């Protein structure tokens, strides 16, 4: 994967205006589900254009990003999204926050690809005819014209994931929240989507286990057991995370050798 020059991308690295209004302000936010503490005591504000989220399986990444689009409400603490209280903002959030689910099967609703893409457009107020046209055009631009009429159920996993990403991109939300969006994509599609994301003017929050996806990101949050373990520049946080992994698996190996 080192065959593509990354210089191009590095140049696009954004620097955030520290005075800019944060789109999300967490004040001692906690989340409990079914009696279990999933997230605890999160205090931070998000204003950067590109924010990454990392952490081990089950550390609470998906739960955390669900707070950003109102799919979950904090069970303690206060969360302000786009200047409004999260609970009261919830009904309008989908207009501003696009959300790509980790498992495409959890996201796709409609029977065919075209309907799935067009749905978001009708939501934004386009009439059915116009939204269908725009959906077809959008699919064609992204090289998926031939999938338009296909039942979602018959797509391969990677095709499904791509359609899920496109169905959110087409709505052009102010904030894009992506929960491990490229896990099933092939190299070509990954590359295209990464380029596309890099070129977008909107804000992005992305969860990923693949750190190469964080190129050009300004900030990375590391969650551990529902708490914020580290928060800073990608360079620092990703390095610290890798060191921690190395240490942990080293320890594991020693134990196994005993």
């Amino acid at each position, binding site marked *: 994967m080192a065959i593509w020059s990354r210089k191009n991308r590095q140049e696009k690295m954004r620097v955030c205006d520290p005075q800019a209004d944060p789109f999300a302000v967490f004040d001692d936010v906690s989340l409990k589900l079914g009696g279990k503490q999933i997230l605890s005591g999160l205090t931070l504000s998000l204003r950067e254009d590109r924010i990454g989220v990392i952490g081990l399986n089950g550390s609470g990444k998906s739960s955390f990003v669900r707070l950003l689009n109102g799919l979950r409400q904090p069970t303690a603490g206060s969360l302000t999204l786009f200047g409004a209280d999260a609970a009261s903002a919830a009904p309008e959030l989908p207009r501003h926050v696009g959300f790509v689910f980790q498992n495409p099967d959890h996201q796709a609703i*409609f*029977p*065919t690809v075209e309907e799935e893409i067009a749905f978001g457009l009708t939501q934004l107020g386009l009439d059915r005819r116009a939204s269908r046209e725009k959906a077809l055009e959008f699919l064609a631009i992204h090289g998926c014209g031939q999938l338009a009429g296909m*039942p*979602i*159920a018959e797509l391969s996993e990677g095709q499904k994931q791509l359609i899920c990403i496109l169905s959110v991109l087409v709505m052009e939300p102010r904030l894009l929240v992506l929960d491990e969006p490229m896990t099933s994509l092939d190299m070509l599609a990954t590359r295209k989507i990464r380029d596309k994301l890099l070129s977008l003017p909107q804000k992005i929050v992305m969860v990923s286990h693949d750190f190469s996806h964080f190129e050009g990101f300004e900030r990375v949050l590391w969650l551990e057991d529902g708490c914020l373990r580290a928060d800073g520049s990608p360079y620092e946080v990703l390095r610290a995370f890798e060191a921690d992994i190395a240490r942990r698996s080293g320890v594991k190996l020693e134990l196994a050798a005993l």
Partner: protein
Amino acid sequence: MADRSLVHIAFYAALIAALGLVPPVAIPFLGGVPITAQTLGVMLAGIMLGPVRGGLAVLLFLFLVALGAPFLAGGRGGLGVFATPSVGFLIGWPVGAFVAGWIMRATPGMNIFASAAVSAAVGGILVVYLFGIPGVAYMAGLPLTTAALGSAIYIPGDLVKVVLAALIAQTIARGLPGAMLSRS
């Protein structure tokens, strides 16, 4: 019978059970036979699975109810329900699903919506009432004509279910063509 068929049968039985969660409209006369969403499941079982598997799905559902699962609308279950005025309808359900599936299979060239609507109307209304009305008459001690006239109260609801069943069948034919087992 292949495992896949078993899974499908179990699935429609569960669907009928799930539809029991839609609150039934209790009817104070006719011995309290409710207006229920579950007949939609009965129609769908026939339309989607074809006669044999459709009928078996409904039978399986009734078996679970008899075992004591509270799967009838309003959380009713147990052998007791077969001693209520509903019993005729309940017996009519598997037969209705069978007939619906048979019609679906017998009209392969017809447009899915139309074919499903006819199947649901004949299997899910006509046949079910053919068993249900005598059941009410017997269990509630009413004359047949009264029972038949009284049953008219269910017709509007049942017609809505026919349309829904046809709509769902048509959507499935688009979104998951492989699931139209009655047509394959």
